[in-house]
């Protein structure tokens, strides 16, 4: 049997979305038959319910990027229905339920602050000349679950270099869209809207750090942060800010949404670290979505070889 390393799998070879969506139908049908004896009438009603359709556009020419992993990919179905995106509600199922009404065309990203070439980019112009890569990354949520996701994107460094930050620029600050009319979760102050995030300049320039515009070879579904989001795989998921409308170069550590909400629990760095527990739960282990047994969490989410040197000499208990 020929076993391919997932890093050799091209986006075009990945199971098409239609087949993923059929999985639920299959589960419904097979378990429906088993339980159907007891609940015959209800079973028929449930089988008739259609699966949700995600009309994502193919991204065309996507080359294989570096830093891949040979772990099993988390199914598209799970990546797009189990989301923390409080702009659409605090339940994991809220984003896939309510994100459909978000208009992502047109989309403008403002790039400003301490740089020589600030500009307001239409998304198409920001993407012009960027070679899209597939990056298969682990995603570790601060809530101790994880996924493996084939993102499509390009290094954030490309955008930073084009903007030419000045020598005073030490940090990069990001802002998510604020549009309560299309983001119903923003009508309640679960967080201090708009969502903001930040990286130190060396973190932002790191080759692992990407701006993603797709997953599974297609454009991002809204619930996953369309049309453009950050992916920083060695940090807890909430650092990877979604639906970005502004990227600013600043000289001081910028405020970040979860740190403002609870600075005792969520630090600016928020590097994945099995040795530093969240005050309310252990970070030593995680549940990979689709697996039953918890697995050990890896330092820097397994990207220590690439990023540990960024934090040399820092007390990671203090700078959590």
């Amino acid at each position, binding site marked *: 049997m020929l076993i391919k390393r997932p890093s050799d799998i091209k986006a075009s070879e990945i199971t098409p979305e239609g087949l993923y969506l059929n999985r639920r139908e299959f589960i419904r049908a097979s*378990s429906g038959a088993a339980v159907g004896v007891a609940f015959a009438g209800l079973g028929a009603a449930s089988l008739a319910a259609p699966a949700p359709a995600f009309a994502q556009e193919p991204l065309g020419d996507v080359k294989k990027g570096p830093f891949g992993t040979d772990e099993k990919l988390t199914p598209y*179905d799970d990546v797009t229905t189990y989301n923390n995106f*409080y702009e659409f509600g605090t339940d994991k199922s809220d984003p896939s339920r309510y994100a459909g009404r978000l208009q992502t065309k047109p989309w403008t990203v403002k790039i400003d602050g301490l740089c020589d070439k600030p500009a307001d980019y239409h998304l198409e112009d920001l993407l012009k000349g960027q070679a899209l890569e597939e990056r298969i990354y682990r995603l570790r949520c601060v809530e101790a*679950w994880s996924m493996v996701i084939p993102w499509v994107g390009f290094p954030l460094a490309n955008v930073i270099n084009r903007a030419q930050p000045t020598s005073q620029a030490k940090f990069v600050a990001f802002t998510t869209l604020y549009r309560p009319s299309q983001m119903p979760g923003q009508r309640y102050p679960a967080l201090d809207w708009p969502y903001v995030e930040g990286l130190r300049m060396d973190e932002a320039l790191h080759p692992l750090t990407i701006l993603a515009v797709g997953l599974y070879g297609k454009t991002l579904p809204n619930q996953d942060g369309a049309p453009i989001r950050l992916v920083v795989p060695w940090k807890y998921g909430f650092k990877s800010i979604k639906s970005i409308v502004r990227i600013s170069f600043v000289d001081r550590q910028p405020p970040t949404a979860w740190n403002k909400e609870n600075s005792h629990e969520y630090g600016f760095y928020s590097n994945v670290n099995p040795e530093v527990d969240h005050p309310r739960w252990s970070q030593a282990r995680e549940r990979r979505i*689709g697996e039953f047994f918890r697995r050990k969490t890896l330092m820097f989410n397994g990207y220590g070889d690439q990023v540990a040197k960024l934090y040399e000499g820092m007390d990671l208990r203090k700078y959590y």
Partner: protein
Amino acid sequence: MTEAQFVRRVVKPAVFVAALAPFLYLLWRAAMGELSANPIEDITLTTGRWTLRFLMITLAVTPLRRLTGWQPAIRFRRMLGLFAFFYGTLHLLTYVVLDQFFAWHYILQDVAKRPYITVGFTAFVLMVPLALTSTSAMIRRLGGRRWALLHRLVYLSAIGGVVHYWWKVKADTRDPFAYAAILMALLAVRVWFVVRKAAARRGAVTAVEARAANG
């Protein structure tokens, strides 16, 4: 059929089935693959919420009976309380078996170090003696007064359960706030009953004294 027979033969079985329905519906969703990508989280949240709901429903029985005067309400209290214990047990088992799979090292650490788990675990432990002494034989053995005193632990258990939920959520406290508000109302009604009873007793005493003075 008398009212007592109707309650025993029709209403009580109906309430029993209704109380079991959330559990059956959860099983159904699990079998149909309708839980989320993280089914263990769904099961944990669902059983936890139903534990709190049944604690609230149980605590509503007495105020309801006294405010409406419908005495048969009391016949449902034990069953509803045992359902709170049933869902609480499922919630704890979900954590120990499905979530941690008997990783005692981590479980003990959680119970000792994580305040929300300490409180939640305590709230569950407090329900155990109540479930064990819920039989008529145990009520007779303990004597009504001592039994009633012991069963006031349910207040602590309910408070612990709400605090457990409040301390667990990350940012959106609307749901735990709703439970806290309901619990406060249920406890406030009891305080009001006590105050009113004391006032009535004082009133009775005053009336007797007045009669004595007049006599």
